């Protein structure tokens, strides 16, 4: 066990922001046996005390799209580095995606990953399983056995079954087990071999384009299936302005749909790839300002429920190739929460962070929502507002460096991540 169990600790003077629990106050936090107390216990202060005067404390963040590379590609990311990167980025929990090698479509692979988590993780890792065998979209994965093994959600992310019958039946079947279904909406034919958003830019760069319609058509399909079956579906990583409109109409008509967006898509546009920067080759592709602005508005209007990291690590040699040969995907765990705050561009962005990165993600997976109230499990993040710093993935915990945020100046900094009553990350000036 690499975990350092700091059973008890005190964080003094922070500003607690937890609207769902009706908390918005400056208060000390005394953590005893993993539980939160606002007043000093009779046993007195802990020797492990930190002053967090002027810091903001938010309920624990959960990332809905962290791509796990174990088994299969531990050089790109180990379970340990994945969870350390998450903790450094302020996440006390992540949902690991099932596109491992072999795919997480069988209990044995799930148990192997769980073993690695138990050995090395300081945060909570929830597992998703494949919706279809090998995420090939040809036959339904053994979802009952996956549920028994411990998965909380099923998805073929970063893919989706092309066959509508199999997709519909797989969802119907998944719901029998109460599993959350995440769909990564992207028409496989319209997006085939694409390397960038379809636009004048991709045209002049000579890159095959991924049109907005590739996503919107798949969003429309998911909405129709959700309506037809009367079951909720969660749409992962929207990137197109048109998708936001479709989800808005669906919600207004009572369809049970939730959706998220990656932090990259709230902050960046296709311009990032204009020098063939493979780290900005994301999936879905970065699109245009119009999309970015609509996605931000969607977040603020409650149409988009959550923000994810879309963390897709690739070892340096896999990305240091010709643009069209580089795999799609970028790292994001270390920057997503802070990028979300930057993108919101609000004086008081913290309630939105709690809503979109803590409460809603937990509810989408059917998990209880963390709280800063007394007696609750300590599961929260401490960040310092108005502290400028420049991100360089070389200083990060991820084994991969394919971040499009390299060189970005953030105005907030994560100082502590507390997961399941324990300190999972603590900022130290020496470690950057």
């Amino acid at each position: 066990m690499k975990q350092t169990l700091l059973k008890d600790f005190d964080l003094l003077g922070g500003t607690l922001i937890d609207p769902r629990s009706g908390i918005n106050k400056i208060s000390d936090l005394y953590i005893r046996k993993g539980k939160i107390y606002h007043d000093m216990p009779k046993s007195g202060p802990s020797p492990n005390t930190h002053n967090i005067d002027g810091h903001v404390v938010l309920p624990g963040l959960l990332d809905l799209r962290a791509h796990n590379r174990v088994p299969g590609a531990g050089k790109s990311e180990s379970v340990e580095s994945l969870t350390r990167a998450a903790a450094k980025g302020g996440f006390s929990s992540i949902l690991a995606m099932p596109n491992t090698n072999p795919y997480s479509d069988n209990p044995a692979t799930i148990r192997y990953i769980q073993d690695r988590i138990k050995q090395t993780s300081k945060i909570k890792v929830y597992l998703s399983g494949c919706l279809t065998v090998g995420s090939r979209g040809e036959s339904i994965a053994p979802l009952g056995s996956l549920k028994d093994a411990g998965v909380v959600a099923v998805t073929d992310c970063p893919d989706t079954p092309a066959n509508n019958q199999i997709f519909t039946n797989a969802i119907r079947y998944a719901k029998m087990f109460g599993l959350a279904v995440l769909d990564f909406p992207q028409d496989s034919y319209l997006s085939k071999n694409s390397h960038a958003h379809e636009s004048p830019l991709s045209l002049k760069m000579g890159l095959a384009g991924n049109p907005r319609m590739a996503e919107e058509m798949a969003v429309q399909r998911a909405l129709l299936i959700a309506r037809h079956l009367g079951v909720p579906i969660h749409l992962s990583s929207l990137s197109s302005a048109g998708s936001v409109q479709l989800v808005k109409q669906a919600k207004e008509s009572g369809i049970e749909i939730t959706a998220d967006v990656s932090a990259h898509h709230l902050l960046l546009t296709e311009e990032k790839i204009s020098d063939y920067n493979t780290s900005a080759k994301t999936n879905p592709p970065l699109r245009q300002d119009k999309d970015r602005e609509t996605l931000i508005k969607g977040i603020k209007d409650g149409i988009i429920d959550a923000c994810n990291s879309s963390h897709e690590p690739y070892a340096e040699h896999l990305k240091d190739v010709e643009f069209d040969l580089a795999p799609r995907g970028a790292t994001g765990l270390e920057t997503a929460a802070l990028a979300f705050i930057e993108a919101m561009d609000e004086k008081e962005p913290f309630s939105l962070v709690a809503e979109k990165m803590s409460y809603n993600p937990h509810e989408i997976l059917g998990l209880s929502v963390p709280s800063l109230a007394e007696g609750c499990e300590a599961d929260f993040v401490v960040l310092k507002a108005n502290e400028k710093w420049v991100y360089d993935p070389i200083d990060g915990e991820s084994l991969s460096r394919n971040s499009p945020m390299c060189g970005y100046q953030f105005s907030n900094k994560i100082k502590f991540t507390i997961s399941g009553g324990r300190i999972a990350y603590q900022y130290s000036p020496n470690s950057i």
Partner: protein
Amino acid sequence: MMWHRKSLLSIEDLSPEEIIYILDKAKSLKESKGSKEPIFHSLRGKRIINLFMEPSTRTRVAFEIAAKSLGADTISISGEASSLTKGETLKDTAMNVQALGADAIVIRHSSPGSPLFLSRIVDVPIINAGDGAHEHPSQALLDIYTLREKMGDLRDKKITILGDILFSRVARSNLWGLLKLGAIVTLAGPSTLVPREFEELGARVTYDPEIALEDADAVMLLRIQHERQQASHFPSLTEYANVFGLDSKVLSGMKKNAIILHPGPLNRGVEIESEVADSNQSVILQQVANGIAVRMAILHLCITREESNH
């Protein structure tokens, strides 16, 4: 003006002055061909490596002749014969090529942006000889050279590029070059191969061959790459020939002195009928010949980065 560029990666990067500078250099090389001017030895002792990861005949041969005409040694590496087929990355191949003492690398590759990628890895000049559907600068320069040879200043001249524009690096490089020199560029072909978005890059787009050709001063035909696009982009070569093929009947509806260009290889009977390809208005073989002078200019300028002396 002075020539500063070490590499020629795209036409989009170039200023109009730089384009004219290369073309003027090509002209003086063409005119003094066979003379004993020192420029014909300017690359003596230099080793130029042609790294051709995609099949090519005329471009590779033209670069080879151009290099040898300036006194350089050339070595050609083709995709099939290189270690890339053994799993070596382009990055490693390029570093090895540099370590072998290349003074310049001429690269043809199916990946857009690969010459830029190379230029960040190695220190020697990189000449883009075609990167995927991105650019083919030397082809555009020789096309523009040929156009100017026939028509003089290209300002306000109407040039139509007809065919598979979507997958064509030749179309993109010509679009940039022609626009920079003030020409009016019309892109035409099947709607599936000529996205409207090209209008945002400054071109006119039409799917009506008659409109595309009626007032054109020159038409540049592009090869239909049927092996790649058939089924998903147009029904058949016969249909393409019927709708967009340039035959003598279509030619008779064009301006009398309009000229016909084609970067080759030709698909006779598809985008161009034989009688048109071989007509007086066709400059297809002049293009090939001019390709040598233009590539000599490119190699000379990028490798020696000479200062202007005329």
